[in-house]
């Protein structure tokens, strides 16, 4: 038990807990929106495309998260462009950008001279190595997301539920769609350090599936998703520490296990 409380005195662990809080709030809210609107696949495309930016940053030697943001937003706009203007089917355009981003990332990393030690932490995440500046960025993202969802809650809900009706009522639907897709891209990128590119979809969907078991109210879904995400992330963090297994994978395993248990509980109440 002593080692349990001792953990919280370590600087790296305090940071990890803070990162878990920030990741849970941003992923809980944005994930709730993504799941409700059924745009999980688009989000997957954006996430994986961001790997291209990380590769480019390794090659040219700038901040990998900056590269990831550029590629994520680029992919978000690219998917829209392919679908609306070039008239390629939406799921196909997503797959094109998804794989293009990954391919570019692999090429850039291959061209980078020497060994790239951090690569694994971007792919699979490592919440225990989150830096102060990354924490600040995550904090600011949380402020933006919370403010956006509080200020425009009803408009976001109404557009997400019935876009066409919102248009007939004169809401700026396209503007809101661009704003939310940008927030999705930022959320994905800034949370890459927690669970990694390959695993981030889990934080955007599993807590939401758990929350959806208990509520069908959009507002409550967003809040409950954040709560479940936090419990799962923190538990996963402990499991990863005590069993000495990678944190990202441990967190996801915990989230799925939680969902299974909650689903069972629900069938008994």
């Amino acid at each position, binding site marked *: 038990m002593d080692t349990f409380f001792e953990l919280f005195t370590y600087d790296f662990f305090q940071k990890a807990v803070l990162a878990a809080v920030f990741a849970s709030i941003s992923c809980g809210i944005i994930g709730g929106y993504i799941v409700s609107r*059924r745009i999980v696949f688009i989000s997957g495309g954006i996430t994986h495309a961001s790997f291209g930016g990380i590769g480019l940053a390794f090659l040219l030697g700038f901040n990998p998260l900056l590269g990831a943001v550029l590629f994520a937003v680029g992919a978000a706009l690219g998917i829209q462009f392919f679908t609306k203007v070039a008239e390629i089917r939406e799921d196909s355009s997503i797959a094109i950008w998804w794989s293009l981003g990954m391919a570019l990332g692999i090429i850039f990393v291959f061209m980078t001279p020497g060994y790239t030690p951090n690569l694994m932490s971007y792919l699979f995440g490592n919440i225990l190595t989150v830096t102060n500046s990354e924490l600040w960025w995550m904090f600011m993202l949380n402020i933006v997301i919370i403010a956006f969802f509080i200020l425009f809650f009803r408009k976001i*809900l*109404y557009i997400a539920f019935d876009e066409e009706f919102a*248009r007939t009522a*004169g*809401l700026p639907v396209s503007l809101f769609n661009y704003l939310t897709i940008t927030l999705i891209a930022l959320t994905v990128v800034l949370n890459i350090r927690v669970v990694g590119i390959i695993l981030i979809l889990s934080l955007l969907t599993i807590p939401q599936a758990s929350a959806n078991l208990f*509520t069908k109210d959009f507002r409550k879904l967003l809040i409950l998703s954040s709560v479940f995400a936090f419990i799962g992330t923190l538990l996963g963090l402990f499991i990863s520490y005590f069993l000495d297994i990678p944190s990202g994978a441990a967190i996801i395993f915990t989230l799925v296990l939680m969902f299974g248990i909650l689903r069972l509980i629900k069938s008994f109440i």
Partner: protein
Amino acid sequence: MNSLLKIENLSFGYDKVPVLENINFEVIEQDFVGVIGPNGGGKTTLLKAILGLIKPDNGKIIFGRELQGRKKAIGYLPQVRYIDKKFPITVLDVVMSGSIMVGKTLSQKAIRNKAEALLKEMGLINIKNKAIGELSGGQMQRVFLCRALISDPKLLILDEPDTFVDNRFEGELYEKLKHINKDVAIILVSHDVGTITSYVKTIACVNGNLHYHNSNKITQEQLEAYNCPIQIISHGMVPHTVLQMHNHDHEH
């Protein structure tokens, strides 16, 4: 009677395939227009043009004074089949969503009270906190009718409000619309010609073009002359106007 909206020479096509051609049509105050026509004939497209969801290739829609600032003066009930029934939203929130733009002048509390009053009127107040996906077809249609009415529209546009609705409720729905029609003009698209003709005042047959029929009595022969290949089907339980057709048959 004042004109609510007037459509002049309107044409529209998807990917250069013409759907609506040279439509001329006027809706006046307290009108109750039944829009009928075969599938793919352009009924929904016509509604979308009026709602501003699509931009006509040619022609124009002139809105009367009552519909100036039309964004809140038109109530819209879309086809329920296109609604995502798994979306996590409560009945009350769905109804309140009808007042998005009105929300600028009314407080959330006032909108909530109004939504609850409408739900009470439709006999839905007990299920206001249920998720939309938990409702029956008839309940869902009534919820969307509440959403269309909460903005106090001058014109109500309904796209097949009788799908997924059982016979008993269908009669109730049309009685309700008849009542609403005392203050609000209605454009109603339906595939159930036999039923709507006993409630609407005039009929528009849409099949690429539009034929206006200034009464609710329509015969199979007239439909054919209008190039509107649909069958007048009769249903039990609900009042319907098939009599006219029978008389016609007997005359021969």
